[in-house]
């Protein structure tokens, strides 16, 4: 799947979820935000994050040497 198709897929899924959760009218108001978030999801999904890379949370970052 090319990047634009993948981004459109994410946007469609977000739009469907927004309609279900907030109603069609509110989902329509969120159109631009949905497009932004779909773009971020694409960037995160396609970046080659290391297989060993665990999520960082509270105990990060460690002090510099």
């Amino acid at each position, binding site marked *: 799947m090319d990047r634009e198709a993948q981004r459109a897929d994410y946007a469609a899924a*977000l739009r469907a*979820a*927004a309609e279900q*959760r*907030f109603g069609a009218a*509110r989902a329509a108001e*969120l159109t631009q*935000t*949905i497009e*932004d*978030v779909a*773009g*971020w*999801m*694409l*960037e*995160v*999904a396609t*970046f080659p*994050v*290391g297989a060993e*890379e*665990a*999520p*960082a*949370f*509270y105990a*990060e*970052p*460690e*002090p*510099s040497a």
Partner: protein
Amino acid sequence: MSLHTLDAIDAARAIREKVLSPADLLESLLERIDRLDGRVQAWTLVDRAGAREAARRAGDEAARGVFRGPLHGVPFAAKDIFYSAGLPTEGGSKVMAGFVPDYDAAAIARLKAAGAILLGKLHTTEFATYDPAPTRNPWNLACTPGGSSSGSAAAVAARMIPLALGTQTIGSNVRPASYCGLVGLKPTFGRISTRGVMALSYTQDHVGLMARSVEDVALGLSITAGHDPADPSSARAPVPDYLAALTRRGAPRIGVLREFFERATPEVADVTAQTVNRLARAGAVVEEAKLPPAFRAAYAAAYLITRSDTASIHAERFAVKAELYRPAIRSAIEMGMLIPGDFYVRALRIRRQFRREMNPLLERYDVLLTPTTPAPAPEGMATGDPQFQVPWSLSGLPSITVPCGLTTSGLPLGIQLVSGAFSEASLLSASAWCEDVLGRGAAPGL
């Protein structure tokens, strides 16, 4: 010299030497607020009675030779997302109308324990997000002071207070400090406790400091930094003597991140390039530095994480008070509810990878340098572009802005310096050296 122009450290020294009374200093600041805040609108609340009582007590103690700490008798102020015992704390939101906490945020408590006097609370965008505060930029009242720490930046720039607490989750402390011609520090994630600060993100909320000199910021950090067992994000890293670090200032090794210049306006890029040349002529070792691969995913990761965190943090309130939220944060919360969990976790993994990939660069240089903002403070209410702060909010790496000049239209610009985790001592030392070379930031002509 007018008392309201004193830096915090100079005021503290004068009080200790008994040539300045805390009450006289306070009255000078109150007079300044009375004269200017109708136009600047930095303050949500000025606690005149409480501050006067604290100043009277500080003066009595000083007369007896009793000094609580390094800021004895010196006023400070806090963004209105910091809990302040007995004072309204509304986070710029109707959702929190009438809320009065019964304890002080950890950073406020530490400053008070050091003798400082909380003069009042400062405007914020709603819950430190996007919906703007009414505050105007003292350099040009048509312009934003930036956000979300809008009142903090404007009040310090307008000489209404020498030191203010802000916060940064995306770009909310360093950017407004730069827009207003100040020094603004976002320390390492976990360096200053966020206990008692209205949360926006579990992994990107930072308490920040704003002042008119690197020395004042170093003093503020020395007081507020340190482990807090009541804050699960608080770091155990030892706290060095940040003021002592300033005495060891020398020409730093600077890695210039050229990619940021290419995203800036021609004027900002030009002023920053001239600044870099001045620093090099003064002895800094300057080289071009290249960002690691994970930088390109850093923005998307930061935005997905903050949306998801914000949705989680506001879930209960939003369920019953959605109509009280303003449009931008309402959209952010709603979208955060829809982001799938696997994307959130992947974004957190990118966060860690980005920081790890930054390490070699941070070991090679004392500081990395960018323009602080892609453009000066824009006109209107929107709080400006935070993109040059996002990678450091995501990674938790410390960053600071130091004033470097004015645009042709008379608005302040800054350079942003970044260093390794918990390397604030060397970051502040390098910043002080740059401040020596570039000169202190000017004052707005209010």
